[in-house]
């Protein structure tokens, strides 16, 4: 039996949040010092981490299984990219455009997905991302189609820090964005809204009997999740200065799910840990042979499902609890 504790226990949690944010900042700083030549890769990790966090909001906090999350990420990436190509260069404004586009796509996706349950819902999510993919491919005059969207040239951040060749500005901008989003989400998941969502995950009928509408609440979460994913997409567009069709794909959606599960869903930290480990190992192994990488991911997934259903973060917290519980 795992330890259970009250969800929103008390106001004494804020030091934990500060420690958590400090740990993320520290990990980011360590990445900067240890891998100064891989800043573009580290920024990609941050961008994808936002996608995985957004997926965690739906799966981990509301219990909605989706294999189409990258539709929201891609919506943010393309919106920011198209805005940039058309003359909007302020990076903060581009992130905001990404958040908005992701949020709107999230609303749309929620409206579609919540019409069904179970397998049909899963299928709808896949069809949704595939439809976005086909649209992005077809509207090549705006999106660049399969060639990708080029010509994104963001201006200096806050008018001061230009985006450099080494990706320093992009990396620190990304890290700052991640910290902001993480802090905001830590607050949101413990708001009344966050509590209601956890309730819906466990028993929607009980939530309804409390007089709370399930559908409007979930739609709201879809919009929020979309905004987070959209910011991730926009960050990716700004950092790499290109948007490809792979940012709206079933593969990216499935990979995001795998990352979340490896890390452990239902916890914001799990989402981050899963992303870092997945992308880190992929970076090393897939360079050798992409099929070995697929086999490895498959084995990891099966192992997590059978032996550590709460993911690596769950394994870690259990270990800590056991260590503390020792006499």
């Amino acid at each position, binding site marked *: 039996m795992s330890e*259970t*504790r*009250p*969800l*929103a*226990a*008390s*106001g004494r949690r804020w030091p934990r949040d500060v420690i958590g944010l400090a740990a993320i900042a520290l990990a980011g700083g360590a990445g900067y010092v240890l891998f100064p030549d891989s800043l573009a890769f580290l920024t990609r990790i941050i961008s994808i981490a936002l996608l995985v966090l957004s997926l965690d909001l739906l799966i981990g906090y509301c219990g909605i299984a989706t294999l189409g999350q990258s539709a929201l990420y891609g919506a943010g990436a393309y919106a920011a990219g198209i805005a940039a190509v058309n003359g909007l260069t302020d990076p903060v404004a581009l992130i905001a455009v990404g958040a908005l586009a992701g949020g709107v796509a999230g609303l749309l996706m929620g409206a579609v997905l919540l019409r069904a349950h179970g397998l049909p819902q899963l299928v709808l999510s896949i069809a949704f991302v595939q439809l976005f993919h086909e649209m992005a491919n077809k509207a090549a005059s705006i999106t660049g189609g399969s060639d990708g969207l080029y010509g994104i040239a963001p201006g200096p951040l806050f008018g001061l820090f230009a985006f450099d060749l080494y990706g320093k500005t992009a990396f620190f901008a990304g890290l700052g964005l991640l910290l902001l989003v993480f802090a905001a989400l830590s*607050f*949101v998941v*413990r*708001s*009344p*809204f*966050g*509590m*209601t969502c*956890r*309730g819906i995950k*466990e*028993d929607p*009928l*009980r939530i*309804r*009997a*409390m*007089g*709370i*509408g399930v559908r*409007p*609440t979930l739609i*709201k979460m879809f919009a*929020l999740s979309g905004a987070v994913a959209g910011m991730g997409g926009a960050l990716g567009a700004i950092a790499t200065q290109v948007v490809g069709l792979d940012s709206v794909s079933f593969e990216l959606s499935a990979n995001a799910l795998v990352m979340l599960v490896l890390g452990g869903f239902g916890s914001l930290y799990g989402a981050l840990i899963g992303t870092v480990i997945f992308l880190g190992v992929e970076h090393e192994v897939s360079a050798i042979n992409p099929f070995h990488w697929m086999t490895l991911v498959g084995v990891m997934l099966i192992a997590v499902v059978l032996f550590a259903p709460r993911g690596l973060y769950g394994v870690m917290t259990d270990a800590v609890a056991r260590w503390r519980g020792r006499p």
Partner: protein
Amino acid sequence: MSALFRIEHLSKQFGGLKVTRDVSLDLVPGDRVALIGPNGAGKTTLVNLVTGQLRPDSGQVFFGGEDVTRLSDVARVRKGLVRTFQVTRLFSEMTPDEHVTLTILQRKGRATRILERFGHDPAIEFEAADILSTLGLTEVAHRPVAEIAYGQQRLLEIAIALALRPRVLLLDEPAAGVPSSETPRIEAALARLSSDLAVLLIEHDMDLVFRFARKVVVLNGGEIVFTGAPDAAAADPRVREAYLGSYAHASRVA
């Protein structure tokens, strides 16, 4: 004059099976009515029709003079038509305090606010503590529901219902599955319910029905076969038929 709550000619069938046949019933403030009947009589279906989880094939439900037949279950709860569940439906990782707090927040229209901290409003915390203490749950208020006794979970079901400030309360077997040592606590909780609240109690435990209800409605085969005082029910031939029919028949054959 008009009833607070009234159902008229409610009918429902699944496939060819009629589970509710032309049921009419009304409640005025302060009513304590028990709905009883053998297994399969259609009690839970009736509750689901009344609360809006199911749509009736025909008939109407009125609440406070308004036709609520087409309203969703959520809308009915917000109007004050509240139920508890026969099998406890609670969130295993949340505490009783969190359940009641969330419910009060909903009543105030704040249950889905994002920019607000949960459990940091003194007025709401005070009210939640008050409700929990009324039901004797103060000691376990901050422990996850998964760790508290089943009897206490049943009391929490009632606490959530009370936090909604209901005008009509449907209690679906509040003592089901509770060890007999703990039933007095549930009975005491029922005895303390506000006197202007109309209560419909669905119950198997006849002792509880006799002590609590001033009127008994007996359901059999989806239709009401008896309405009247609890004492009269036991002597009524239709009630005996409802409960003993098959046995009486069997003994005659044997």
